[in-house]
């Protein structure tokens, strides 16, 4: 992003390396100021919000300025000090739905060159049976050397891989090169400067959008796969061919006034699709609520064709009104499931779940959030899963997140937009096929330490459980593993793994695994500590936060607790800071982003005056 004509963006390259789901992406850009005066050049990229920035550097006049990860509060003090002195130019943070924006700018002297290098790392999550790598590229002008390269190493073997981009035209399509062998894939895309142009000699570039790689790995062993490197191990568990468990699900739908219009319409659309997709052996119930709570039927119904069609007719008539009593609605759903279970109306081997959809804070009945959380926790008593869907930007997402986590579930944000109904369906697809409950992965106590979470309340079809830890014995030959879970058939597998010889598996690339397994372990540990820092007793939260901060600093990750400080060459006390947004900040940014994006040609006016 530069002053076109005097500043030439010489190169932009993206190098993404994946080693067993752990992806490290390095974005490099070089620009030259060919003008007679100094120019400001900015480097602006977007990265997935699940990623942590781990490095950033600028090279100017052969001098390299490297970012340093610092505790957020300390970085902020430094930043504030510079701001008050009027000497700084950049705060680095912004966000989108799936991505976060990183941008810095720096003044470059005449006839000088600057090279920006940014690295981010993330653990790819398996969703609906595949991993997805998203690389967003938005150069303002054609670039002399433009290249996206991805090398994927998966010791389990790659079962399929697909690469496409939102900006690919028929002319560009053949430029995506894909080489796949059993355990390794190489994908590259490198259009020439002419191929990037919208038309010969016209300005602008067609390269603007997402380059997306999707793949999955082979799953030969039911016990999963264990990989050991440099004293750390990681266990990937996603058995295939398990019979899904029938589920008993109560949909709790907010119909308060704020759901009016598009949100209510999208909810109805999504519910119709979700009802269509229910398995015949599932039971379901529907509760709608505002200040009052009404249920479709007093108990759950089997998903027969007739029942589904009656439920659809009911859903089509849900209309908005009134305020929001979340407490009463969720407790009613719990009561319905408990009563049906006690009356033996539900299959013994089945899973109970509540899916709550709301777009706002509780405003009537019990409105104290900690009390609602306690009421729900006590009522559920660990016997069912609660999933919270937060619709739009006025929802207290933290409240839903904590309440869902406390009840073996998870929360998801549904963004207001044309595709909201699809987002609702997508979430349902993810959680609609439970395979196992109470999954326990056990390793020998004397051989492992610093283990990440090894107990999971459920495993869904198409997802994956990952556990990592440190080995106390580097020369481990036989690593015993046990996995237990409750499913249609109870799952119990015991086996042994050995460390593979990477130089045999990847004779030309045996060095590649290096610190990846350790960093995967660190990433996973930090993510789980950040989650723990939101629930539980105050001292446990503080403890988890402190540990997450320590590890973020140790592994140089920009997490919500740290910032990366880059000292600009102009002055020692004018740093630039890369931050990681918290979910709450992301919500705020979304809110503002929406307003900015949808800003009509006549801007809104807000005024105060008198008659």
């Amino acid at each position, binding site marked *: 992003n530069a002053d076109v004509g005097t500043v030439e963006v010489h190169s932009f390259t993206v190098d993404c390396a994946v080693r067993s789901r752990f992806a490290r992406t390095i974005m490099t850009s070089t620009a030259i100021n060919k003008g007679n005066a100094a120019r400001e050049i900015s480097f602006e990229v977007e990265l997935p919000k699940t990623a942590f920035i781990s490095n950033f550097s600028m090279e100017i006049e052969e001098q390299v300025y490297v970012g340093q990860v610092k505790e957020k509060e300390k970085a902020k003090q430094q930043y504030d000090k510079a*701001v008050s002195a009027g000497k700084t130019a950049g705060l680095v943070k912004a966000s989108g739905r799936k991505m976060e924006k990183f941008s810095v700018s720096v003044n470059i002297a005449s006839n000088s060159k600057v090279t920006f290098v940014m690295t981010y790392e993330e653990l790819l999550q398996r969703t609906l049976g595949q991993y997805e790598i998203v690389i967003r590229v938005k150069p303002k002008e054609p670039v002399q050397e433009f290249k996206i390269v991805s090398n994927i190493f998966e010791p389990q073997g790659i079962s399929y891989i697909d690469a496409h981009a939102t900006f690919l035209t028929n002319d560009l399509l053949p430029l995506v090169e894909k080489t796949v062998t059993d355990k390794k894939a190489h994908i590259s895309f490198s259009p020439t400067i002419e191929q990037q142009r919208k038309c010969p000699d016209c300005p602008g570039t067609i390269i603007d959008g997402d380059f997306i790689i999707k793949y999955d790995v082979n799953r030969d062993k039911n016990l999963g796969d264990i990989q050991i490197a440099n004293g750390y191990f990681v266990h990937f568990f996603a058995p295939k061919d398990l019979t899904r468990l029938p589920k008993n699900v109560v949909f709790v739908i907010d119909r308060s006034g704020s759901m009016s219009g598009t949100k209510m319409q999208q909810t109805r659309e999504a519910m119709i699709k979700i009802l269509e997709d229910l398995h015949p052996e599932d039971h379901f119930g529907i509760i709608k609520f505002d200040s009052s709570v009404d249920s479709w039927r007093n108990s759950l119904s089997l998903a027969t064709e007739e029942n589904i069609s009656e439920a659809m007719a009911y859903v089509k008539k849900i209309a908005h009104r009134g305020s929001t009593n979340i407490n009463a609605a969720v407790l009613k759903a719990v009561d319905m499931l408990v009563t049906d279970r006690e009356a033996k109306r539900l299959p013994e081997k089945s899973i109970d779940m509540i899916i709550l959809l709301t777009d706002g804070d509780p405003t009537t009945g019990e409105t104290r959030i900690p009390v609602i959380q306690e009421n729900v926790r006590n009522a559920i008593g660990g016997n069912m899963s609660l999933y919270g869907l937060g619709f739009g930007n006025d929802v207290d997402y933290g409240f839903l997140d904590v309440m869902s986590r406390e009840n073996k579930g998870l929360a998801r944000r549904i963004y207001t937009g044309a595709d909201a109904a699809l987002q609702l369906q997508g979430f349902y697809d993810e959680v609609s096929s439970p395979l196992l409950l109470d999954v326990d992965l056990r390793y020998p106590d004397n051989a492992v330490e610093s283990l990440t979470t090894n107990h999971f309340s459920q495993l869904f079809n198409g997802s994956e459980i990952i556990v990592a830890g440190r080995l106390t014995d580097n020369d481990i030959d036989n690593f015993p593993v046990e996995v237990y879970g409750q499913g249609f058939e109870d799952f119990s597998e015991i086996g042994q793994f050995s460390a593979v010889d990477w130089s045999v598996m990847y004779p030309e690339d045996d060095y590649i695994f290096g610190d990846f397994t350790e960093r995967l372990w660190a990433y996973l540990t930090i993510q789980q500590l950040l989650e723990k820092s939101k629930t539980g007793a105050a001292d446990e939260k503080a403890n988890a936060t402190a540990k997450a901060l320590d590890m973020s600093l140790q592994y140089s990750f920009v997490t919500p607790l740290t910032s990366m400080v880059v000292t600009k060459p102009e002055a020692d006390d004018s740093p630039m800071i890369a931050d990681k947004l918290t979910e709450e900040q992301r919500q705020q940014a979304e809110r503002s982003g929406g307003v900015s994006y949808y800003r009509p040609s006549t801007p809104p006016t807000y005024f*105060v*005056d008198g008659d």
Partner: protein
Amino acid sequence: PHFMIELPDKNDALCFNINDKPGTIFNLVRDPVSGILVNGQIIGDKKIPPDGVINTYFYRFGITHWTLGVRLEVNTEFITVYQGGERIKLLWSAPSSLKGPNVDMVLTKDRSLMVTLKDSVKFVILLHKVWEKHPYHRDYLGFYTLDSHLLSPSAHGLLGQFYHGIEYEVSDLRPGEVPERPDATMFVKGQQLNVTRGWQRDFRNDVKNGENVPCWFIHNNGTGIIDGDASDYIVSGLF
């Protein structure tokens, strides 16, 4: 003072009044991220009008931009700008303009002051001059935000909270106390409010008569549409 939230993309507007004791200072905009603070002080009529209702108006605004190091005081008599240890005083009676690295101002004699604070906000303050010997009324000011999209999502205050947009739905239109002003039910921020169709005046193009803008009027000092209540926005000083 009457507050107006014009929403051209909805072809609609919301309005409400906020009144309190003369002398009260309200926070209108506060954005800790970009460092903006706008406070305004109200004044009452010279004496109690025949209908017994004391109307209040803004007559002094304090505008601070911490990060740019800019401070402005605008009252019905003059404008003071503090920047980098420098103090500049402008009189409403003298047209002038000021172009600096962080702030641009254009003053139209006895009428308006347009202010642009670098990379943050653009607003205009209107001066309503009232006949000096008017038995009840006196000069007052209006504050119009023209561009706030660069402010952060943390922006709040009586006006600032609406910079992020607002979702509402109006239904159940029914006859009101006055036939031309029907009542309706508004669903906003999870609440159900009784609102009345009315209009308020936008004086930007015609400072004397204003233009009527139809709007949904929210009663009781904006209760339900503003976060908290009006007293939550009272501050102790102009800066």
